[in-house]
């Protein structure tokens, strides 16, 4: 039980096919060995969002080649793998099923344990590949096109509790929709971030969703913000005025970053947690990380943000979570495990 173990991770919950390899050392530390990702994002662009069937087809085509790339990158062979972790959910049903079916076959053929793990936990666990072990208690803010959640993490392989989430759109979804309003490309995050740097974040006072005194303290809402942007833009167009795209982007982005960071810092204080991890595709957003750094510093909270490559969906995050649940002594998942599009956050490993 003291030797190093190699854990393979497979991710297919949305539009990225990911295969990652990590090494779990005897002392519980986890090291990244390989991280291969194939994305179908370009195939979805003209539809303005992820088309599940297109994503599922792409996963099937990409799985074996992505596996090959990950192995080549690490210099290992499949026979070196000691355990396999796969995203069991949450995510798109048809997409998840490709990864889960492949993972079962790899695990059975190699005769190694299989862990069906939670995608959201993976977004948190991935930070240990960059910044080392997490404290026993920490708070995680996950922001992407698919999720916007505040999680209390008490041992990454042991207990994760959702304390808040979006009640409508995910933050990344709001970016995509606002990009469409402004005729910017999909996905909306990068072009809006770029424009925002040229604009005035105080130019337009867009609403901060769910920040009233009676609103749920840790929940988010971005649907109203998106509608407010649409209405503002449309009114300007009707008046025949040119749209100040940079100012709209900056003001929108400010509203998103303000709410996300204010609620995360408040939750950390309320729960007496001194470490905040921000992960997910939107974590790479420049204003979000800047404002989070500023507010965490003011509140005496340690901020951890994995590098952008690790923040977006990938197999390394699933391998990392697999390594932590293996280290925590979790029982493997059965081979009749279903893919679960609605897997609850609290289920770290499917039993």
């Amino acid at each position, binding site marked *: 039980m003291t030797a190093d173990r190699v854990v393979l991770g497979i991710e297919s919950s949305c539009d990225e096919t990911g295969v990652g390899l990590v090494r779990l050392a005897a002392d519980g530390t986890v090291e990244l060995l390989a991280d291969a990702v194939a994305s179908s994002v370009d195939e979805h662009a003209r*539809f303005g969002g992820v088309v599940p069937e297109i994503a599922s087809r792409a*996963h099937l085509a990409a*799985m074996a080649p992505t596996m090959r790339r990950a192995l080549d990158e690490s210099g290992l062979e499949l026979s070196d793998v000691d355990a396999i972790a796969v995203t069991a959910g949450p995510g798109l049903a048809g997409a998840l099923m*490709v990864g889960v*079916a*492949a993972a079962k076959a*790899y695990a059975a053929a*190699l005769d190694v344990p299989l862990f069906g793990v939670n995608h959201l936990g993976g977004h948190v666990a991935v930070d240990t590949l960059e910044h080392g072990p997490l404290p026993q208690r920490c708070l995680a803010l996950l922001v992407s096109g698919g999720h916007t959640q505040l999680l209390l993490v008490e041992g990454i392989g042991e207990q994760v509790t959702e304390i808040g989430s979006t009640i409508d759109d995910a933050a990344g979804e709001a970016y995509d929709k606002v990009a469409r*309003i402004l005729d910017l490309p999909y996905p909306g995050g990068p072009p809006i971030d770029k424009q925002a740097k040229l604009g005035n974040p105080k130019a337009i006072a867009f609403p901060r969703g769910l920040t009233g005194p009676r609103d749920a303290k840790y929940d988010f809402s971005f649907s109203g913000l998106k509608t407010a942007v*649409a209405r503002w833009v449309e009114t300007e167009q009707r008046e025949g005025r040119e749209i100040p795209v940079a100012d709209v982007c900056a003001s929108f982005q400010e509203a998103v970053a303000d709410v996300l960071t204010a609620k995360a810092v408040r939750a950390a204080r309320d729960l007496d947690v001194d470490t905040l991890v921000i992960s997910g595709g939107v974590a790479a957003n420049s204003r979000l990380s800047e404002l989070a750094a500023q507010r965490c510093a003011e509140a005496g909270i340690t901020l951890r943000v994995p590098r952008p490559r690790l923040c977006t969906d990938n197999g390394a995050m699933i391998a990392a979570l697999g390594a932590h649940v293996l280290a925590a002594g979790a029982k493997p998942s059965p081979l009749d495990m279903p893919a679960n599009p609605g897997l609850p956050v609290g289920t770290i490993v499917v039993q």
Partner: protein
Amino acid sequence: MLVIALDTSTPAVTAGLVALDDGPPRALAERVTVNPRAHGELLMPQLLDVMTEAGRELGDADAIVVGAGPGPFTGLRVGMATAAALGQACGRPVHPVCSLDAIAAQATAEGPLLVATDARRKEVYWAAYDAARARIDGPHVQRPADVPTDGFAAAAGEMAEALGIAVVEPRYPTPVGLVAAARAALQGEPAPLVPLYLRRPDAAEPGKRKSVLTRGGK
């Protein structure tokens, strides 16, 4: 040679281990469960049961044959993803076969044959075969009424009834049928593992954005 045969292109979840020598293929063990909602859950446990019953390890197989459809996409992909991963992990070739060919190979009828399976949305996947069971048309996806039945006395497959001619067994692909259909292919390099989807993904490009001001300010 020993061949693992898998198919998830119909409501049947099919796994078997088949011996292929000079004579007709023989099933050493097989598991077939009809459950259109549980391909992902059932396939791998069934295959391991098969191997246990046959007293063999997965790595003992010389090749893998998988039904490439046509079939409902989500279920179909379970078999294809499983076969591809097994082949990669065991270092064995994976040969796709048209799942309708596997049904035709086992059909209990003389003369030309039609095979039809459920494509949902009131359509069938179908193909036509000559007396020697070579595919002469298809696979296609169409309404049953539009399938040309002239010159065919019998049909096999789960939707055979819908074609209005004599119905013969089998309804679903079997391990032996899959291997029989792949017999020639097994002698050569495997073809690319590409599913026979026959339909494009349902996806519409967004139209013009709706006004938010004329929606009553919502």
